């Protein structure tokens, strides 16, 4: 599945176990400017629910989610 969303930054969290994907995301997030889009790829089984939940709490918008051969990729936009 291909995407039309352009990411300003790509985080490869494949192979990382919980809680590393959200830890990595949170670390990167502080340097993301409002309006920018971060893509994060993860294979952790909990990520499908965890990343959208994290986004909701942090006030990020999930623009798109793709799933390909067990790899989930989320496109998150910083809105505030």
């Amino acid at each position, binding site marked *: 599945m291909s995407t039309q969303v352009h990411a300003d930054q790509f985080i490869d969290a494949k*192979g990382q*176990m*919980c*809680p*590393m994907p*959200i*830890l990595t*995301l*949170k*670390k990167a997030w502080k340097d993301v400017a409002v309006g920018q889009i971060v893509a994060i790829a993860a294979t952790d089984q909990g990520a499908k629910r965890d990343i959208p939940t*994290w986004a909701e*709490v*942090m006030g990020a918008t999930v623009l798109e989610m793709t799933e390909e051969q067990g790899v989930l990729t989320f496109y998150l936009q910083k809105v505030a």
Partner: protein
Amino acid sequence: MADRMSIVLFSGTVDKLLAASILATGAAAMDMDVEIFLTTWGIEAFRKGAYKTNTRVSKDFEEYGSVMRELMAAKKAPTWWENLLGAREIGDVHIAACSMTLELFGLTLNDLESVVDEVTGVATFMERAKDSKVTLFI
């Protein structure tokens, strides 16, 4: 004010330390403040250098201890110590050591890892815990 999670960390076995460290990381990643109160075996786990050699697991499941260690190494799972340092890097994670336990064990703050911020008693923990959204005893 940020939401807070408070943990009484009583255990010193790596299985329970791992659970506590993951919860602390999750809370910090979601902009929650984390208050950890170390007491009894939790103090033992934070003695200088102890995290490098501690391989204890809960008595009920001790026969799985070596298997768990092998799986964690094989799957490159972060240790409880790595999680905790990560949580402190991304969020406000405050760690206090129980004065009574230190007294009992003949220790001072200098005998503990530098991630431990201060020595307090139960009243200080209660004051910080009473407004917490999440409070756990591990």
